[in-house]
């Protein structure tokens, strides 16, 4: 089994149009219950709109705080799922069942297992113990 993050991207709409989309909520409830029952659902979150986003970065030692998302694009990150799936085919199949694919895009990304994170850092010459894996992820 491997974990996949399903990143839900969609266009942000005005309130009237958004209200129309909210009508899929009962369908989502049913989907989430099904995923949970099948033991596939690790986590799911919906995000506030990018109007509430703040971006932070440090350049030349100065912390910059900027109003807005990292990138201004038509479709923005609106939420995510973490699913436990047998392989990519299963993750893609679950992604295709989300109603958001009808108007937005769902990007499926494999989650790097903590052990692989540890060995990747070790290969780069970082001195880490086997126990450190628990604090990585």
């Amino acid at each position, binding site marked *: 089994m*491997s974990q996949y993050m399903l990143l839900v991207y969609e266009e942000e709409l005005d309130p009237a149009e958004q209200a129309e989309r909210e009508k899929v909520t009962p369908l989502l409830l049913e989907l989430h219950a099904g995923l949970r029952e099948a033991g596939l659902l690790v986590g799911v979150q919906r995000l506030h709109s990018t109007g509430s986003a703040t971006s932070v970065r440090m350049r030349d030692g100065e912390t910059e705080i900027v109003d807005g998302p990292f990138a201004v694009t038509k479709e923005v990150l609106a939420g995510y799922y973490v699913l436990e799936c*047998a*392989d*990519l*085919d299963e993750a*893609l199949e679950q992604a295709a069942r989300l109603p958001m694919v009808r108007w937005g895009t769902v990007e*499926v990304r*494999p989650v*790097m*297992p903590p*052990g*692989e994170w540890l*060995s*990747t850092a*070790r*290969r780069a010459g970082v001195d880490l113990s086997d126990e450190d894996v628990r604090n990585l992820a």
Partner: protein
Amino acid sequence: MSGGVEPADAVSAAAARAFHEERAIVLATLIRQAGDFQLAEDAVQDAFEAAVTAWRRDGVPANPGAWITTAARRRAIDRLRRDRSMADRAERLAELTRVDARHEEPSMDDGSAIVDDRLRLIFTCCHPALEMPARVALTLRALGGLTTGEIARAFLVAEPTMGKRIVRAKRKIADAHIPYRVPADKELPERLRGVLRVVYLIFNEGYAATEGDRLVRGELCDEALRLGELLRVLMPDDAEVWGLLALMLLHDARRAARVDPSGRYVALDAQDRALWDHGRIREGLASLERAVRLRRPGEYQLQAAITALQMQAPDAESTDWAQIAELYGALAALNPSPVVELNRAVAVGLASGASAGLELLEPLLGEPALERYQPLHAAHAELLSRAGDAEGAARAYRRAIALTANAVERAELERRLAALR
């Protein structure tokens, strides 16, 4: 056969034959056992390199394929023992050593195990989560045994670019856990269509293009035919598998006649039919017949049927254009595209008269996808000329001439334009 030391060239020949005949089979099985594409490929490569030295020393083994299988598996075990960073290293080692201890060799004559592994390999290489050029390259490398350099030359891409494309695809297979299996029944038809598209793309790349290394391009056609035949053996109940094979065989039968001695393209109705490969045509027609008997029409079968009708008629005049028009109609219903509509209009124009053809062609003149498509304007000119509108025909010929970059085509269009008056 073993025992005596073979002369060096016999050993090289045996290794080359084993590479040609067994590499894909050995690789397909080892990918499943080792659980990693790259590891399996490296190990198989090691095994073939070791074979030449070992066979020179000990003689060529009775069953070279089994020798390579065992050697490749042991190389994979060695590589896993050395590389501590591999994900799931312990499980893979356990699986490989278990197989090694049991001597689980799929026997080369039976087999469902081999069939399954090669199908798994094809479906993984052609997985829709990989970009199309990577699917083509992986298929040619893993199943065709072409080198990265050969694939790069065939697709007119720099070798490092092609190398990166292949490495990236193999990384994605590993990181995203693209499964190594034949898709379940409900997704199989869709996924098989994707596989057939990759094979046909490989064939067309070799057949249609006019630039690039001609020798390598011929190899692409041969490789696509080999893949088509492999799919026919592995999936004999699928009508489109037979249909694609028929289509490729019928096109390929004309390979020698498509280019004149000075290297210029020759259109179908001007080809010297004595240069056609008639054995290949018979094979193509037999495959088409098998496909039709399965009673599941599809786009490759329809295209093969159209090609067969054009080839069976002794000349353009006696071709059964009415039936070709009907087949294009079926093709358009199955897979609508402006180019199919254009071909249908041309066939109708030849079957039922120029005005019937014009009626179908004229709506296509507003099609943005065809705006700069030379054959549309050439066909329009031809139909207008036959309908008696010399002025309109001249305009359409000039438009077609302006759109062609090919000198032979331009000369032919100019000849037709001059013949109008």
